[in-house]
């Protein structure tokens, strides 16, 4: 709800236009989009009725990229141009990529940029651009079924994603032309889908375990909810264990039973995995499954797999997930008795043995009645609906914490922690620095993320160069550097010299991210591809922004302009508003942007008064409720 449009407590909000918003689960293997329609959050299907969109993009030199099933099903024919694991690469550097390299068939290009590029027939592409294609496809699906443009989206990210990975995810959304209302962590989204954030626990806190067995990864998160503050107490798992491993266990059994060699041709192997996966799914419903397979030598094999045998095949794999759960509980310093709810995420949690063993470990039946493939997207949709302002009167807040400590490099390759992990967001800290040479006008600050003491053991986020420090003798300058982390967990740095009040210019060199210039040129390229004009789009966006500011100011003035402004102040604002309206018709996006800034500066004092009044009213409302403490009223 815009600041200028804040409704007084108890007063109904102005006539409200429903804003279209969607929740997106951008997954490693599959992605989904969901929306709240009526009062129900549901995932959206494509024209063929399929909800899951494989996170696979196939690029070609002549046609627009192919996204989803079509790309996945033809991957074997064109492996180098079909990118399937962008999420594993996003926000990562070349060194990370080389570490993962064994599993990835792509051809990486060395460039000056910090971001790895993959050579495809459609050009050298970053993981950000690949993910943007998936996001575009999902957004189009949402707009088609909702019948209008999206105001914004909530995108989910793993709880352990660092700043670079979050920033890269947000960049992908920007590139896809989407406005991100919030990045939400996946386990938090799953908890929201089950309404765990709304459980009336009184003053008690709730501790929840989110068990997420995806296609290729297993994640366990222990969350604590205290009055709307979600804290990730511990996150753990196994990045090389997933539902695919259950299929593989069944496939091995078939190989043994059918007496075929392990070195089969790719076609047979693919069929084998499909048969195995189908058997796994059937065994979730029925006591046994029939398997049929055409063998390479022309024979036809068929067999029966009963649940007991299946359970014996997969039990060691499930045991590994439980070991990770116990480790996470220990890290979180909670026991299974402290857990209030266990939520299941990921298609493989449909397997009955998984549910049994999880229930056994935690001593309670897990929550699994929301489709575990869709639960994260559904939670994201509920949050998107709330953030878009479609639930007036709903004052639920989801406060997030920073998952990894943020620090700066000091002498000797050590990291000085600045913002500890689990600090509630948004957060800010400042640190004062001084110059060590006479007349020094620049300095560099290296920001890292992680829990270790050595720079080498933490993840480099960015190097910030401060320029424009007024020249003084060594040690005289007092440069206050402020590190701000917003609600999405993204870092911004600003700096000012304290004795002179001069702000220093901060130039960011992200270690694993794209610079603004790179994003800009990608955006331009993608628009040219779509036959759009960047300048026209900028102008359009600026005008919309300008109109929003104008409307907000008008309605604010109508509501309390008289109460909060004296005649001279009112005249000044009216005059500024008239000037602003004249500029709105300009065809220069830059002019409009400048005018918005100017109007905002003129009205800053008014906005501040309104905010203070709102806060005052909010606290006063609380006092009325707490009338039982008359000694506290002032």
């Amino acid at each position, binding site marked *: *709800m*815009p*600041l*200028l449009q804040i409704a007084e407590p108890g007063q109904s909000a102005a006539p409200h236009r429903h*804003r279209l918003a969607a929740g997106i689960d951008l997954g490693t293997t599959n992605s989904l989009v969901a929306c709240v329609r009526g009062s129900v959050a549901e995932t959206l299907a494509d024209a063929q009725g399929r909800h899951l969109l494989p996170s696979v993009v196939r690029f070609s030199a002549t046609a627009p990229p192919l996204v989803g099933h079509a790309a996945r099903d033809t991957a074997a024919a064109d492996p180098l141009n079909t990118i399937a694991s962008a999420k594993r690469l996003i926000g990562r550097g070349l060194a990370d990529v080389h570490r993962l390299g064994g599993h990835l068939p792509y051809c990486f290009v060395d460039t000056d940029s910090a971001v790895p590029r993959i050579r495809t027939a459609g050009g050298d592409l970053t993981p950000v651009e690949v993910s943007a294609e998936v996001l575009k496809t999902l957004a189009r699906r949402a707009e088609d079924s909702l019948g209008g443009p999206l*105001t*914004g989206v909530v995108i989910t990210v793993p709880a352990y994603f660092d700043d670079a990975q979050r920033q890269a995810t947000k960049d992908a959304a920007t590139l896809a032309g989407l406005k991100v*209302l*919030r990045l939400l962590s996946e386990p938090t989204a799953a908890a929201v889908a089950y309404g765990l954030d709304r459980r009336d626990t009184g*003053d008690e806190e709730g501790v929840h375990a989110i068990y997420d067995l995806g296609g290729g990864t297993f994640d366990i998160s222990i969350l604590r909810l205290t*009055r*709307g503050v979600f804290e990730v107490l511990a996150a753990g798992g196994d990045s090389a264990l997933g539902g695919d491993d259950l299929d593989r266990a069944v496939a091995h059994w078939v190989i043994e039973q059918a007496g075929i060699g392990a070195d089969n041709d790719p076609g047979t192997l693919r069929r084998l995995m499909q048969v195995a996966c189908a058997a796994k799914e059937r065994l979730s419903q029925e006591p046994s499954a029939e398997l049929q397979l055409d063998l390479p030598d022309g024979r036809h094999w068929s067999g029966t797999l009963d649940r007991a045998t299946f359970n014996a095949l997969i039990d060691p794999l499930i045991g590994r997930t439980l070991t990770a759960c116990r480790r996470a509980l*220990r*890290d979180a*310093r909670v026991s299974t008795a402290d857990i209030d709810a266990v939520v299941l995420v990921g298609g493989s949690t449909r397997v009955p043995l998984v549910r049994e063993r999880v229930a056994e470990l935690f001593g309670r039946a897990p929550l699994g009645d929301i489709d575990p493939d869709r639960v994260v997207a559904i939670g994201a949709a509920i949050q998107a609906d*709330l*953030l*878009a*302002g479609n639930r007036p009167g709903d*004052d639920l*807040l*989801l*406060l997030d914490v920073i998952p990894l400590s943020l620090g700066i490099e000091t002498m000797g390759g050590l990291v000085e922690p600045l913002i500890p992990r689990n*600090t*509630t*967001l*948004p*957060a*800010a800290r400042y640190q004062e620095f001084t110059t060590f040479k006479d007349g020094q006008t620049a300095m560099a600050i290296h920001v890292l993320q992680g829990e270790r003491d050595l720079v080498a053991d933490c993840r480099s986020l960015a190097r910030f160069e401060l320029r424009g420090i007024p020249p003084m003798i060594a040690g005289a300058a007092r440069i206050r550097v402020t590190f*701000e982390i*917003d*609600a999405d967990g993204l870092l911004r740095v600003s700096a000012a010299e304290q004795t002179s009040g001069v702000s220093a210019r901060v130039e960011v060199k992200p270690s694993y991210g794209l610079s603004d210039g790179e994003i800009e040129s990608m955006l331009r390229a993608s628009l040219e591809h779509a036959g759009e004009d960047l300048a026209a789009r900028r102008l359009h966006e600026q005008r919309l*922004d300008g109109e*929003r*500011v104008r409307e*907000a100011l008008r309605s604010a003035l109508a509501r309390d302009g008289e109460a909060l402004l004296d005649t001279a102040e009112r005249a000044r604002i009216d005059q500024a508003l008239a000037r602003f309206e004249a500029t709105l018709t300009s065809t220069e996006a830059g002019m409009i942007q400048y005018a*918005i800034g100017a109007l*905002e500066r003129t009205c*800053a004092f008014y*906005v*501040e008064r309104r*905010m*203070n009044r*709102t*806060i005052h009213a*909010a*606290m006063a*409302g*609380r*006092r009325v409720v*707490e009338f039982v*403490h008359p000694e*506290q009223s*002032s």
Partner: protein
Amino acid sequence: MLDFSKNYFELFELPVGFALDAKRLAEGYRTLQTATHPDRFAVAADHEKRWSLQASTQVNEAYRTLKDPLARAKYLLALHTGDPGTTSETSKDGAFLMEQMELRETLAEAQTSPNPQAAVARVLTQLAEQSVALDKELEGLFATPSPANLETAREVVRKLQFMDKCRRDAEALESAIDGRY
């Protein structure tokens, strides 16, 4: 900015002092975050977002400071004397330092003792008991913030700081031991 020239206690409409109604603090926090958090401004104009970010950050910082006894005590010292200055100085209380050294020794020996968990747990319990007593003392001192009382409070804060460091080391050791078994 908000009228955050108000001190943290005024912001939460709480009396200035070390004794604190934790329930009122938590409720005030919710109320203030509900009014300022960036999620409330997800579809607002940019300057409103910036504003909300600053206000919400400030509310978080105020809450974090008041919630934690040591941070609250330092903040009170800064509020009353304009100087929290405790970080670099060490306590001058010989008996206290002796006691702390013993705790440290117990911790060092814990690693080789037959039941390390129990040894660390003993240290943590002792630290917790001492903190309760010191917190009680601070309540009285900050209730009448005379220069002499503030000087005494400063010494108590130094002790708490010392104990806090010891507690964190003990906890780190505890999770290292847990990890081994």
